[in-house]
């Protein structure tokens, strides 16, 4: 990890010094244990703040979906992308929200991000002093001892079956470990879910969403949600109510997730952002699997892609139009 971090710092320092970018977006140490926080570096003296570890969770492409205040005059932004982040970025480029030439991408082939909450829960409130990592393990040192965890046991769900840890687009690539997973379709979690009865599935849906407080963190953390006026807040017309009652909450989630069809790269940013730990992936991943099955398409893999639902091909499957329920 330390090797990766110094490689990263060196690369960013060079980019800034050579004026290839005016701003670099990466991660720095967080103010809470086992967290990092997005970091905006403009001066190469500040590059030492940049870190790389198993807690670099945020999808940084989210900052490219609108104009950043404090954008450098020369306009080019450097960004650190894990596999999933780069797929989000590819999607933003394909949908013409970002120009490829305006970004310099340092890609990291990611070994997976650790679920901080689960790890902290296991540590049961011990006061953490330090964290060390190697290829397989994370060693957490606390007051009175230390404990070793296998990284694989604490990964986020979206990381467990990640098929594309290596970024699909980059200017510089930093490799972390070696692994080449095979894509898994359908997702095992969705497979299990689909085996349940319709009533059971609806109950799970209701139960998960009963915790929703409509904070819109899922939407705001998603790089794909860049509408200047979100359907949830439109007044002309007002599509649905602003309450946190069931019908309004369902409407919001169902429509937002449907808007992700053919675009969601399953980065897990929405799940991580949700303060109520709602398993949003239960809904988003269904669409990811469905899109793969019907169109053979996975977004975010190639800059040459066309936006799926905005493109028509004569050999698109059509049988769903006549399918029984």
């Amino acid at each position, binding site marked *: 990890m330390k090797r990766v971090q110094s490689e990263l710092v060196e690369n960013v320092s060079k980019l800034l010094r050579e004026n290839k970018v005016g701003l670099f977006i990466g991660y720095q140490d*967080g*103010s*809470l*244990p086992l*967290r*990092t*926080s*997005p970091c*905006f570096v403009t001066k190469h003296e500040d590059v030492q703040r940049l870190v790389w570890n198993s807690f670099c969770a*945020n999808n940084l492409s*989210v*900052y490219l979906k609108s*104009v*950043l*205040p*404090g954008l450098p005059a020369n306009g080019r932004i450097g960004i650190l992308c894990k596999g999933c982040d780069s797929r989000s970025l590819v999607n933003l480029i394909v949908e013409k929200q970002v120009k490829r030439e305006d970004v310099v991408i340092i890609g990291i082939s990611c070994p997976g991000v650790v679920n901080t909450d689960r790890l902290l829960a296991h540590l049961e*409130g011990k*006061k953490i002093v330090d964290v060390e990592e190697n290829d397989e393990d994370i060693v957490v040192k606390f007051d009175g001892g230390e404990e070793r965890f296998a990284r694989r046991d604490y990964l986020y769900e979206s990381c467990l079956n990640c098929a594309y840890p290596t970024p699909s687009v980059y200017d510089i690539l930093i490799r972390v470990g070696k692994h080449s997973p095979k894509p898994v379709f359908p997702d095992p979690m969705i497979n299990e879910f689909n085996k349940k009865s319709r009533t059971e599935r609806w109950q799970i849906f209701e139960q998960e969403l*009963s*915790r*929703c*407080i*409509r*904070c*819109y*963190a899922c*939407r*705001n*953390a998603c790089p794909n949600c860049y509408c*200047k*006026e979100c359907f949830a*807040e439109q007044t002309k017309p*007002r599509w649905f*109510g*602003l*309450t*946190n*009652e069931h019908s309004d909450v369902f409407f919001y989630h169902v429509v937002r997730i449907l808007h992700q069809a053919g675009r969601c790269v399953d980065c897990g940013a929405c799940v*991580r*952002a949700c*303060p*109520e730990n709602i398993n949003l992936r239960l809904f988003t991943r269904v669409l990811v699997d469905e899109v793969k099955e019907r169109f053979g398409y996975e977004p975010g893999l190639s800059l040459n892609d066309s936006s799926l639902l905005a493109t028509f091909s004569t050999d698109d499957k059509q049988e769903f139009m006549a399918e029984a329920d």
Partner: protein
Amino acid sequence: MARDCVVHNKDFDRFLALLIEKHSVFGPSDNDGSNGFTRIETPEQIKLHRGVAHFSFKNFFFPQTEVLFSFDLASKKIDAANKETEDGKYDILIGLRPCDALAVDLLDQVFVVPDTKDVYYAERRSKTRIISFACNEPCATCFCESVGCAPDSEVGADVIIYVLKDRYIIRTVSQAGEELINGTGMHFDAASEKDRAEKEQMMTDAKSQLTRAFSVDELDDKLANFDASYWKQICQKCIGCGICTYFCPTCHCFDITDDTEGSQGRRIRTWDSCMYPLFTLHASGHNPRPTKKERMRQRIMHKFSYSMQQYGRRLCVGCGRCVVHCPVNLDLRAVIREITEAK
């Protein structure tokens, strides 16, 4: 007037049961849903977590969704339901930490204290009594002392309870609290010097666990510079979700909309957030706060500066929820520190 009573562990459930019998009791439990509190039917239901509860208790007096009135579009008749209070019967909100109790007092400044009162909040507030629990173990993210609160602050509470090793000290803070305790009909021993000393020691220990996050002394001067350059950097990480405002016990911005189905409808009040771009968008298209820089500045200024001028109080109790839940770890403590240290 304040009275310190002692209740031993073995009698505490009986004390709670008496309250439950005579009043409607609400508090934190294992299954609070998105409300933050549950109607308590048995003493065992009450679950006090270390430090602050997940949700603030803002929802109790200022629900996320509130029907202001319902109406019929054909007859234009308006029905503003006003709940009647049963004499002598109160709602009790139990299990708040001192920060959350202070937050209620701060929201009172907005909704109840001015001449024009918010009827919905005011009525609920006037028939509610608050029983808080002093903090023995603040969380690492708590910073109540930095904003003038404390693990044993009594502001906003009618009764405050100290949890000692094998007994509780119940202190009545207000006249209403005194009546509440007397109304149980239970006999209470008065707290002894030993009880008080143990309580003091617990509070000293609790306070020693809190680190000073920032100093508000120079904050007023620094925030007077509206056009300071640091706002551009401070807002960069923010993704503009509403988590900080929704979890904050003193954030009170709301929206008013009409919700109709057929010819029936209701005018509802729902939580809103100054962090959303459409919050201040004029019908003409003009937006005084067009980017997240202005919106972040508004949030900080409202909590730490404007509220001082409006109510003489800062609208922050140091509960730390915004720090815990921010998806990008934008730490308010670091922000305020940076502002106070700015040149």
